[in-house]
């Protein structure tokens, strides 16, 4: 049976793992390759690296990081952050990344999704959507969740699927960093509407939150960062707990 996936996320800045609350106030969380290796050993099903380096210059170190990660771990991983062209994607896939995620650049130029999925296959194109509820409406935000757009989250999700996205990484900016639980309703809505997998992100703080998002939220995968970095939730323990309530996981 296909299992639900637990995905630790590593925010990377200038080659180091960092973690902030609501995308600001960053603290150092260690060497990304070491962390990746630790997570793979603990039973993570996949990894996501989001590069938040400020300059293009520093982003180029990302390709080297991807190579080091691919050499050290043998589970799938996705790389995102500042990707806006076929050549960006080719460099990362050639270095050993399994998938790439695009976010702001896809909002700015939706045709990029078609272009990338035609070139590399939809299985390796993840579209990341940062969503925030504004006056009762879920709206897509870009640039690390700071800039609101007029796109409604569900409508945008449908569009990116039609354009060839293979997966959606849905981050609720309202929940991110709060450890108060994932965005249940929004995730469920996307997951039930779309026929591609949805990764829920933002707000996971306890094992119960993961149970909730897989059962009630219908997520295919759940992503979190700091709770795994700082071992507030241990991946192996979490997966055992999920198994006990008959949520299919790889042990």
């Amino acid at each position, binding site marked *: 049976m296909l*299992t639900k996936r637990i995905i630790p996320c590593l925010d990377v800045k200038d080659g180091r793992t960092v973690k902030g609350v609501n995308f600001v106030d960053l603290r150092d969380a260690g060497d990304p390759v070491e962390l990746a290796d630790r997570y793979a050993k603990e039973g993570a099903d996949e990894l996501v690296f989001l590069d938040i380096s400020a300059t293009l210059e520093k982003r180029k170190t990302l390709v080297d990081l991807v190579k080091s990660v*691919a050499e050290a771990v*043998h589970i799938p991983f996705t790389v995102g952050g500042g990707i806006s062209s076929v050549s960006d994607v080719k460099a990362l*896939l*050639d270095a*050993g990344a399994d998938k790439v995620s695009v976010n702001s650049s896809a909002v700015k130029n939706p045709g990029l999704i078609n272009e990338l999925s035609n070139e*590399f296959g939809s*299985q390796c194109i993840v579209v990341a959507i940062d969503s925030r509820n504004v006056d009762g409406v879920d709206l897509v935000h870009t640039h690390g969740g700071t800039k609101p757009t007029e796109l409604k989250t569900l409508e945008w999700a449908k569009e990116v699927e039609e354009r060839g996205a293979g997966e959606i990484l849905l981050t609720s900016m309202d929940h991110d960093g709060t450890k108060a639980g994932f965005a249940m309703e929004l995730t469920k809505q996307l997951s039930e509407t779309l*026929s*591609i997998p949805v990764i829920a992100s933002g707000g996971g703080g306890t094992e119960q939150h993961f149970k909730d998002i897989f059962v009630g939220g219908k997520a295919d995968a759940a992503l979190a960062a700091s709770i795994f970095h700082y071992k507030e939730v241990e991946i192996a323990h979490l997966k055992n707990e999920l198994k006990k309530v008959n949520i299919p996981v790889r042990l």
Partner: protein
Amino acid sequence: MKVAIVKYNAGNIQSVKFALSRLGVEQPILTDDPEEIRSADKVIFPGQGEASTAMKSLNEAGLVAVLKNLNQPFLGVCLGMQLMCEYTEENNTKCIGIIPETVKKFNPSSDMKVPHMGWNNIYDLKSPIFSGVADEEYIYFVHSYYVPKCDHTIAECDYLLPFSAAIQKDNYFAVQAHPEKSADTGMKILENFLKL
């Protein structure tokens, strides 16, 4: 040991190379040269991408007949496995034809999405490449097309229906999942293949 990885426009090569080097293969040769491929001890045929583009690339490189007439252990991975069949529904493409099967597309159901993406368990393992791999062990899949159960099936997996997780004909082996991305279980499968 000389291990050749067939070079064509397929992704995912770097991870295969890293996995092989972890298993002690110093310098796998990424090549589209028929002689290099024929003289290798083992041949790995990776794959990721779209079938008709991949077949076009293999045809242009003159590799179809070469790959079809090898005698050493050969391992197709993911799209590589599908291209080893006769035909695929993906853009109605004629494939290499090593294994006389037609590759079909998954039809998504209301609660089962396509692509089949993630870790799933394999069972009914019938080949030395699964030596030391427990029944129901999990490996990592990403695909929208599948090889149906057939006489050549050496491992099964269930998603929407039971399908071939691996097939074999003579010296030709193939797995639908990505062993190079399937943690220890995947490494075991690659290690077993290298020992054939």
